């Protein structure tokens, strides 16, 4: 039931969703729900919770699509931001009982090997550029930024994980973010 949409097609469908077009909304869902479930599942590590958050996410998308501006945001990034923030909110609300090992297991068991429709949505150039710039950071910093994004963890948790003082972790990430910005805008 996955449909592959180009970035422009998705932006158009999202725009129509903002006008109350249910068929367009359905196209948005079909093209992006697998990617967004990947995002929420990575953060929550529980399929039931991740799908609950996915449901909330699309209801938010339906309500907020009118504010999506294709000239300022990439449609998939706009959607991922909503899903990721909702999943992190749920994680930190304490509703999620994060277990110690399930992330890889959960993903391995249910991962869909088929090429993701959302892969067609990100322009390859943007992703390559981001990866190039992250690659210019030292490994610890680049790794910490990736982990923070993908797992939705705070400075505190990152510092514990890397076994460094909180201030050190903050310093790595803040400096890393600033270098990343300069690199992306150069």
């Amino acid at each position: 039931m996955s449909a592959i949409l180009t970035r422009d097609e998705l932006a158009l469908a999202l725009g129509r969703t903002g006008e109350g077009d249910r068929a367009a909304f359905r196209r948005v869902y079909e093209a992006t729900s697998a990617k967004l479930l990947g995002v929420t599942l990575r953060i929550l590590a529980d399929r039931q919770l991740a799908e609950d958050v996915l449901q909330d996410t699309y209801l938010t998308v339906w309500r907020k699509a009118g504010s999506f501006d294709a000239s300022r945001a990439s449609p998939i990034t706009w959607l991922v931001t909503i899903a990721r923030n909702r999943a992190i909110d749920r994680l930190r609300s304490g509703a999620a009982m994060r277990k110690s090992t399930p992330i890889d297991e959960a993903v391995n068991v249910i991962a869909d090997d088929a090429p993701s429709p959302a892969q067609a949505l990100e322009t390859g150039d943007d992703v390559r550029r981001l990866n190039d710039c992250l690659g210019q950071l030292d490994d610890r910093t680049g790794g910490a930024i990736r982990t923070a994004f993908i797992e939705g963890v705070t400075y505190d948790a990152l510092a514990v994980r890397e076994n460094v003082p909180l201030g050190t972790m903050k310093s790595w990430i803040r400096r890393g973010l600033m270098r990343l910005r300069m690199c992306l805008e150069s």
Partner: protein
Amino acid sequence: MTDPTDVGGMDEDQALAGELALRVLSPEDEAAARAREATDPAFAAHVEAWNERLGGLVEGIVSVEPSPWVWPRVEAGLTPPANDNSVVFWRRWAIGSTGLLAASVAAVVMLLAQPAPAPIAPAAPAPAVIRVATLTLESGAAAMTLAYDATSGELYLAPTNEMAGDTRVPHLWLVMPEGGVQLVGAIDGSTTSRHNLGQALFGPAGHANAVAVSMEAPGHTPAPDKPDGPVVAQGALQRL
């Protein structure tokens, strides 16, 4: 002493916006930054720009196909557009499809007066809630009777011989009170059958106010929200 978090003359707002977008701040710091975002458009724009910059990290995440019940639950939560309802939908559809109708089954253009949906009892260990419908053709002849147990999801279909001999495949649809239709699936038009709707259709079937049958080409599955073949029969769902 140097503050280890000092970004060396870099724009403090930019760093904070990046931290907020990345969601690494402590709950207290995050609440303060969110308050700033809500009241300071320049800062909010920084946060948005960071979301864009970091968005490509999603490429590192494996896609996972959601369970089939997620979409129906999303759809059930949508606020209905004010200018849409099922009667309008079907009237438009029936007019548009008239030319496609095959001689073997006459079109339904008769729209039954739809009774107000039966009040749904509050969720409780309720006894079986049986809903029934008689689907009729344009001629008024009954094409099928249907019974649905909203507590167990059991669906029972008893077609008459009106659809016998048609080479197309009948598909059953739910007509939702807020507008639009939801595909149940292909059905057997020649003999009685039992189905269990399962989780995906439980909610929609519980509050649909009518059912309909479209005739689809063999081997073709229509989109879940729009029949491709002609709609030949419909009937209001009523509580037994």
